[in-house]
């Protein structure tokens, strides 16, 4: 390990003469020797009588060494001692005088009290912070809603068609491979688990019913939403956040551009269009994955698989899944854009808020999914 301290230098030294109360100091007092000098000087004991320091034998001095010298002098000498009392080569006098300025450093007190009260304080602070964050997000939701209505009222002026199609391509078409592959694999996994469990009751053909219902009602839309939250929600936050760091948002606002119209609406509309389509595609791929598993495990051919599905499923089953997709899309896009605008002007902030955006949108998607389930069960769907 390279270190400043192993360089071969003339050693720094000091010697305290108890009889004359004189501290003789010499050698190279540099940062390389500081760690050692700091420890040894700390062990020096003074017996009340002021000590004069003779540093005329110093061969090199830098600001770390000068600080140690000053600190020692402050500790050993009477408070009213003058700088002249210190003997030092003329060359180094400016350095010492530069450092020897009285500065008041008040120990700053932490505002957080210790112990139980501290924990209470932190809990309260987090609660209040969360409350205001929720309030601010609600406010943002309101603003976006109003702007959306306005945009659709005057679509020529406020709707940016090119940007919307660009977002559909980014979040929809470009996501087809990953969404397709993962849904296919999930379909396989569900079918495999269904077959192994239901075989014990001789009901393995019910696997197809279960697979169809789970995929269409829940897994298709949930998997797609979570993938898109990680893929596009995070991209929204990072894009808008980086624009904030570069002051591009400020520039847009200074030109009188509406940031909701230009940045947020294309993303929200784009995702609201593409996520249901992606969900439909994911449903299809999931069923295909299941069909493949059934073919290998049960020997069910594709026509037989589809016939079984036809008996188990209704159009309603598909619609129950699909109706959730635009809602999830709206939440993912809203959270992604909102967190993007929360970015402060530093690099760490983009990463932090991108993480938060993904966590929040996945959380909200799952909570909303549960809410949908409760609603459907009350409605008896």
């Amino acid at each position, binding site marked *: 390990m390279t*270190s400043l*301290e192993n360089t071969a230098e003339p050693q720094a030294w000091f010697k305290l003469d108890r009889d004359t109360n004189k501290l003789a100091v010499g050698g190279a007092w540099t940062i390389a020797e*500081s*760690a050692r000098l700091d*420890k040894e000087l700390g062990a020096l004991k003074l017996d009340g009588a002021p000590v004069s320091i003779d540093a005329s034998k110093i061969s090199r001095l830098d600001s770390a060494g000068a*600080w140690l010298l000053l600190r020692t002098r402050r500790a050993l000498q009477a408070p009213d001692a003058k700088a002249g009392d210190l003997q030092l080569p003329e060359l180094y006098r400016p350095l010492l005088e530069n*450092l020897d*300025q009285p*500065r008041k*450093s008040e120990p700053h007190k932490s505002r957080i009290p210790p112990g139980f009260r501290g924990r209470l304080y932190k809990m309260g602070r987090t609660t209040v912070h969360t409350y205001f964050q929720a309030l601010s997000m609600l406010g943002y939701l309101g603003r976006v809603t109003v702007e959306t209505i306005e945009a659709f009222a005057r679509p020529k002026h406020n709707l940016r068609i090119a940007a919307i199609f660009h977002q559909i391509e980014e979040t929809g078409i470009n996501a087809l491979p990953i969404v397709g592959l993962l849904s296919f694999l999930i379909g396989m996994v569900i079918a495999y688990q269904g077959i192994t469990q239901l075989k014990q009751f001789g009901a393995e053909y019910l696997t197809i019913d279960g697979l169809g219902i789970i995929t269409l009602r829940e897994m298709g839309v949930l998997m797609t939403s979570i993938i898109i939250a990680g893929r596009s929600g995070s991209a929204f936050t990072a894009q808008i956040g980086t624009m904030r760091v570069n002051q591009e948002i400020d520039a847009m606002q200074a030109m009188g551009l509406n940031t909701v119209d230009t940045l947020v609406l294309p993303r929200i509309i784009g995702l609201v269009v593409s996520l249901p389509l992606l969900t439909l595609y994911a449903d299809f791929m999931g069923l295909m994955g299941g069909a493949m598993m059934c073919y290998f495990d049960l020997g069910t051919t594709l026509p037989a698989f589809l016939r079984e599905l036809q008996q188990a499923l209704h159009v309603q089953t598909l619609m129950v899944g699909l109706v959730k997709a635009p809602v999830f899309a709206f939440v993912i896009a809203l959270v992604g854009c909102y967190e993007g605008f929360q970015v402060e002007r530093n690099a760490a902030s983009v990463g932090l808020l991108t993480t938060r955006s993904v966590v929040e949108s996945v959380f909200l998607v799952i909570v909303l999914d549960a809410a949908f389930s409760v609603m459907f069960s009350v409605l008896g769907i």
Partner: protein
Amino acid sequence: MSSRQAQNGHDREAVIRIRGLVNGFGNKVLHDHIDLDVYRGEVLGVVGGSGAGKSVLLRSIIGLNPPQEGSVEVFGKPTSEEIESPAMRELEMRWGVLFQEGALFSSQTVAENIQVPMREYTSMSQALMDEIAEIKLAMVGLPCETGDKYPSELSGGMKKRAGLARALALDPELLFLDEPTAGLDPISANQFDELIAQLQKILGLTVFLVTHDIDTLRAVTDRIAVLVNQKLVVGTIDELRKNKDPWIQDYFSGVRGRAALASMDTQETR
């Protein structure tokens, strides 16, 4: 300034030695076989048009940009080694670099930033490091409360001062400054010039200073290297004012240049 030059006279050890340096991007040549010596204890200013390759020259010297051709030696050792190798660490602990925007680590407070090189290269106790961080802050003219702040809470000028405090953390022999006064208001820029001159005098530093600011050049440099037509022209301000090259002529006799130099002439006659 004259005392410093006299000091250089009997001690002409070249701290930085560049021979036949070639740098470029694609077909564009930035440096065409450049030679340069920077002597111990002097302040060398480097000027040149935007995109002339001033920062690239600095990066070549400290080993961030391996040169296409030629050699760069600092303290007599080549800087063409792998940047994180032990040989380079030996050099890196002897120099300090102030990057253009300060380049403070945004996840750490200013005091922690200053302590990074100390932690890396010495075994000082935390208490001593805190004290030294505080005196470094005082040296660059920042109040000690600044130590507890994060870089995002500082203004541009304060970031540069904090960056300078970090560059000075190990009391380096050699200091690289990349446009230290760019983006500062004239008063802050003047204070920064004075600060650099003062620190240079007190600590006996060698300073390699990239700048656009003709006031800075006048206030702190001993010699100036002008990067023009892929070559370096080196001299004092007075020598360069007599140079026939049109860019150098423009630079030192343009409106801004004349104003800055006129104030120098009146100061000298006083």
